[in-house]
């Protein structure tokens, strides 16, 4: 018994040691941390890129806030965030910033008898629902936008994120843009002081609550809507057209956003002006040092992102992310040339 225990302990020790060694960054390994939203596409790109070049990517999806903290502490080669840093903050930390992928935040509902994409909402109405001011599905404001729908005489259960999230940040940013009352009472941030509703942890938590609770409304990342075949609402954009969450609509939002005016791509593309633009499109940015301590690894990371933007966009589409418009890719490559050492 004793010798068995001993052997077990020795084996456990060896295993821990091996794990420790493996945990150390190997040469040719790019390390990154941050946005959970970008995790699926980054890991897919990582596998394809490793097959092609042998360079591996070790990405920890610890959340945008964690990604920002890790890159500032210099423990990773890049950070990924759904909330852009201001140019001043970037300059102070010596960081550069560029977008890598587009997604969108989509209102999802659980309404019996209403087909996906049939419910129409406008930004101010959405803000009123999440403020708790429009609290019943048969509210006149909802009926006016949806004359053909049989909306139930039932209370609206609002579902939001309980954890801090870039998804919440984009959602709140949009509601702040379209509703002065939201801006004044709630504001924008990765976590909010919610006036009403219940909180689910992560996109999957919100999706599970909406799926579970009749007459509820929540917001999740686009990929969740597609993969779980959720019932979504269409939104009226700034041009006055109702737009559903589709790749083309997200791309239109990214294309019509005024990137030329934004320094370090610090621009949220919510409430974009284009005719076909989806109003709550979101972007994930990558943060990297302008003067990295380890130039070779930083170069390897840039090589990875160059490959991802030039040849990895088909995989992005397959995973329900939206490729960046070609024009934006050109601007990013010009930014790289100007910002990062060769």
């Amino acid at each position, binding site marked *: 018994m004793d010798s068995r225990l001993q052997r077990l302990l020795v084996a456990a020790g060896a295993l821990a040691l091996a794990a420790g060694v493996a945990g150390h960054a190997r040469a040719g390994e790019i390390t990154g941390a941050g946005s959970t939203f970008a995790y699926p596409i980054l890991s897919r790109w990582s596998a394809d890129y490793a097959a092609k070049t042998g360079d591996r990517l070790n990405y920890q999806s610890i959340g945008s806030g964690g990604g920002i903290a890790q890159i500032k502490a210099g423990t990773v080669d890049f950070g990924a965030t759904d909330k852009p840093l201001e140019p001043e903050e970037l300059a102070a930390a010596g960081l550069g910033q560029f977008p890598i992928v587009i997604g969108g935040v989509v209102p999802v509902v659980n309404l019996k008898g209403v087909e996906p994409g049939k419910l129409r909402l406008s930004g101010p109405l959405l803000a009123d629902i999440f403020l708790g001011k429009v609290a019943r599905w048969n509210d006149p404001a909802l009926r006016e936008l949806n004359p053909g729908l049989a909306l139930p005489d039932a209370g609206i259960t609002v579902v939001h994120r309980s954890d*801090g999230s870039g998804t919440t940040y984009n959602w709140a940013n949009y509601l702040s843009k379209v509703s002065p009352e939201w801006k004044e009472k709630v504001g924008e941030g990765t*976590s909010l002081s919610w006036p009403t509703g219940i909180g689910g942890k992560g996109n999957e938590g919100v999706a599970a609550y909406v799926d579970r609770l009749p007459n509820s409304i929540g917001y999740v990342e686009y990929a969740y809507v597609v993969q779980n075949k959720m019932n979504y609402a269409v939104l009226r954009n700034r041009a006055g057209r109702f737009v559903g969450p589709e790749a083309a609509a997200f791309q239109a939002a990214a294309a019509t956003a005024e990137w030329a005016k934004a320094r370090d791509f610090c621009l949220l593309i919510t409430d974009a002006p284009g005719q076909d633009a989806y109003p709550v499109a979101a972007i994930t940015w990558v943060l990297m040092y302008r003067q990295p301590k380890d130039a070779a690894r930083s170069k390897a990371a840039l090589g990875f992102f160059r490959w991802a933007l030039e040849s990895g966009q088909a995989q992005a589409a397959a995973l329900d992310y939206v490729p960046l418009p070609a024009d934006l890719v050109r601007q990013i490559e010009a930014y790289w040339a100007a910002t990062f050492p060769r």
Partner: protein
Amino acid sequence: MELEADAAEARARRDRRADRAFRTLLWLAGLLVLLALGSTAVSLAWGGREAFATFGPGFLVSSEWDPVGRRFGALVPIYGTLVTSLLAMLFAVPVSFGIALFLTEIAPGWLRGPVAAAIELLAAIPSIIYGMWGLFVFVPFMADHVEPWLIERLGPLPVLGVLFRGVPLGIGMLTGGVILGIMVIPFVSSVMHEVFSVVPATLKESAYALGCTTWEVARDIVLPYTRTAVSGGIFLGMGRALGETMAVTFVLGNTHNLSASLLDPGNSIAAAIANEFAEADSGLYLSSLIALGLVLFAVTFLVLAAAKLLLLRLEGAAGR
């Protein structure tokens, strides 16, 4: 002769040394507990100093939790933690008592093993499984069957009714409390089972011989004999209920919203920390969450101390 005495002397010296070393080790083991406890409290207090300095004692009584405006108060999580734990104990203690009595008094021999093993298995289930089961199975059951009934029957009552008003979402303090109760049953009931089974058979048999019913034996013989150990088991379960995180997060609703109704969503200290820690984006926010940790520490300590005090009182009363 001399050689022998030397050997005995050497042996005694060696024994003394070994004994000293062993006693030192025991001291260290004992002190380690205090050290771990003390350093946890100190580091929590240090991490939360910004929150305490900013909000003062108001941190404990403010129900505001606004990450955008950076104003934080712990009242809602404290309230949620206490209410869900109280509900859990209200549910778990009688059931555990029943389980333990069943096993020691009534159950036929062939059934004791399986039931006792099942209880221990319950204790081994990770809490996230309870959470998922709660969300996908128990929440719908509460929403469709239990809560509408409560709202209809108990809601209109004058004082008690306040606890049972609102929308039957199935997510809220009541569901959280029941799930917590199920989670602590194994801890409470296995302690009760252990101590009930050491009650001397002569005591119980004498009582039965005097014509006592099973309930009377349980109330007047078994419980008084095992009171201290039974309360220990209850404290153990309560400590677990106060700090439980994952299962509660799934079914509590995670909103910083103060409501008297048990059917409304709320928040608990552990759930708030688990949900918000990773993305707390300002120093004050992070500090407030760490301060919440210290508050949980203090709440647990106070609740257990109060329970202990109550027990001493009871024992004093029984002694007289």
